């Protein structure tokens, strides 16, 4: 495991994990994750962003785009707590949280929510990206609360 700040992520979300096989379209994204950078594609023609990676802008079909670093901040759009393991290597990780995070830049990502008691995870809570080095040269993104999830006033939609 990495000794970076993401170590707690690895503890709480768990390894070993399924390591995705990057495609020609996604390799840049995963390589950036390995450098602990979150990037998405921004269309050079219309300026909009999309995710997951693909070679055409979803809005104007342009093939001209730029990989753009994003803030890594967003809100938790929705989530679910897995109480049951669908894969034997995940038995030890139960319960864990799969969430959909809406980035400030617009696109929504499927990810894990970490550094937060499952009972305190709330739709609408502000979150920020962390990185989880799950294998040599391979890193998954996860998100943690930006505020103390137990403090009053957080968690409203």
């Amino acid at each position, binding site marked *: 495991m990495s000794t970076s700040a993401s170590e707690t992520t690895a503890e709480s*979300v*768990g390894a070993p*994990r*399924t*390591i*995705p*096989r*990057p*495609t020609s379209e*996604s390799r840049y994204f995963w390589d950036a994750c390995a450098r602990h950078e979150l990037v998405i594609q921004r269309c050079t023609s219309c300026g909009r962003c999309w995710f*997951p990676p693909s070679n055409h802008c*979803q809005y104007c079909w342009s093939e001209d785009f730029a990989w753009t670093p994003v803030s890594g901040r967003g809100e938790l*759009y*929705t*989530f*679910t*707590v*897995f*109480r*049951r*393991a*669908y*894969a*034997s290597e*995940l038995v030890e*990780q139960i319960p*864990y949280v*799969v969430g*959909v995070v809406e980035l400030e830049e617009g696109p*929504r990502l*499927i*990810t*894990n929510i970490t550094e937060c008691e499952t009972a305190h995870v*709330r*739709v*609408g809570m502000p979150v920020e990206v962390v990185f989880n080095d799950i294998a040599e040269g391979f890193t*998954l993104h996860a998100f943690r609360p930006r505020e103390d999830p137990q403090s009053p006033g957080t968690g409203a*939609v």
Partner: protein
Amino acid sequence: MYQRSAAIVGAAHSQLGEVPGSTAIGLMADAAVAAVVDAGLTPSDIDGIVVRGPDDEYCFHQQLGERLGLNASFSTSLDNGGASQSLAVILASLAIEAGLATAVLCGYARNSWTRTRRSGSRNARMNQSTHARIREWRDSFGYFGEPATHALGAQRHMATYGTTKEHLGHVAVSVREHATRNPHAQIRWPLTMDEYMDGRPITDPFGIYDCSLRTDGAGAVVVTDVARARDLPHTPVIVRGFGSQNNLRGWTVDDHMVQTAAKASGELAYRSADVSPSDIDTAQLYDCFTYMLLVQIEDYGFCEKGEGGEFISAGALGLDGEIPTNTSGGQLSEGHVEGMLQVVEGVRQLRHEYPAERQVTDAELALVSGHGGNTVCHSTLILERGR
């Protein structure tokens, strides 16, 4: 415009539930033969097949034609997930109107219970996706299975509209209550709210009773033209209208999780049938999970958006409720045959063939839905009791 010239004249299902050693194609043939017999037709009358089997079975229609000795002027297997079965009836109706076929067999079969037993895969990676894009963007994060996908929608609906776990419980309890009167249902004992709340947790907010069943089973219907239907044994069930909508941009984008493709599909269907939600006497909805039934009740306009929980908790789904729904027990209790049993039940209710304890009184119009294809595809039928 569709001229309302098609009718369902035969409907049947195979044995349902745990059918050890069964194959999907064998169950499909059982239901298909029974539906043709029910229609009062013979093998040589059938010249169309629109079916679907398990996703790993190539050209299911071809397998069925080979087994039953049928050529077809119009045939295909569908790939719209749980929306395929209502879509099959839509395609059959259009094919009949266009003269591509005169009598079309529509159906679906699966042997999910047997497959699970055979592979012993309950604790293995039973849901690893075969779809590379899903493997990459879901499996990597420990996101497996359809329960989670629908749970994400349920959680968003709860946060947005105040829907509660108890509201979902009322869906499960209401649908089970119908199943207690269905001798073919896979699960027939009554479900109490306490049992529901104590159900084994799966993926929040879902427990085991929010999830549909693992079923071996098949359903089939026969569609022909209205004129011919009048000479056949049963009261014809007219395909009065239909709609479809496929939110292919995805489940996690826009507001697709809380206002599903059922909304636009339903609007098309109501326009096509020239009826409104208040005209519908019974709904047979695709209840893969409790939430999916609740959100469709809203999307189809049986109550206001966001009020589905309260509406259902007040008894709306019961036989004497505002909109008797999934009157055979649905996929949560009768058996999960991907929406095909919803079509069969709609037909049976409109034929008035049940004893009073199961019959929706004076049912004239039924709405049937199909939902699937990674949660974004939807089809709607509006069926009418013929004369």
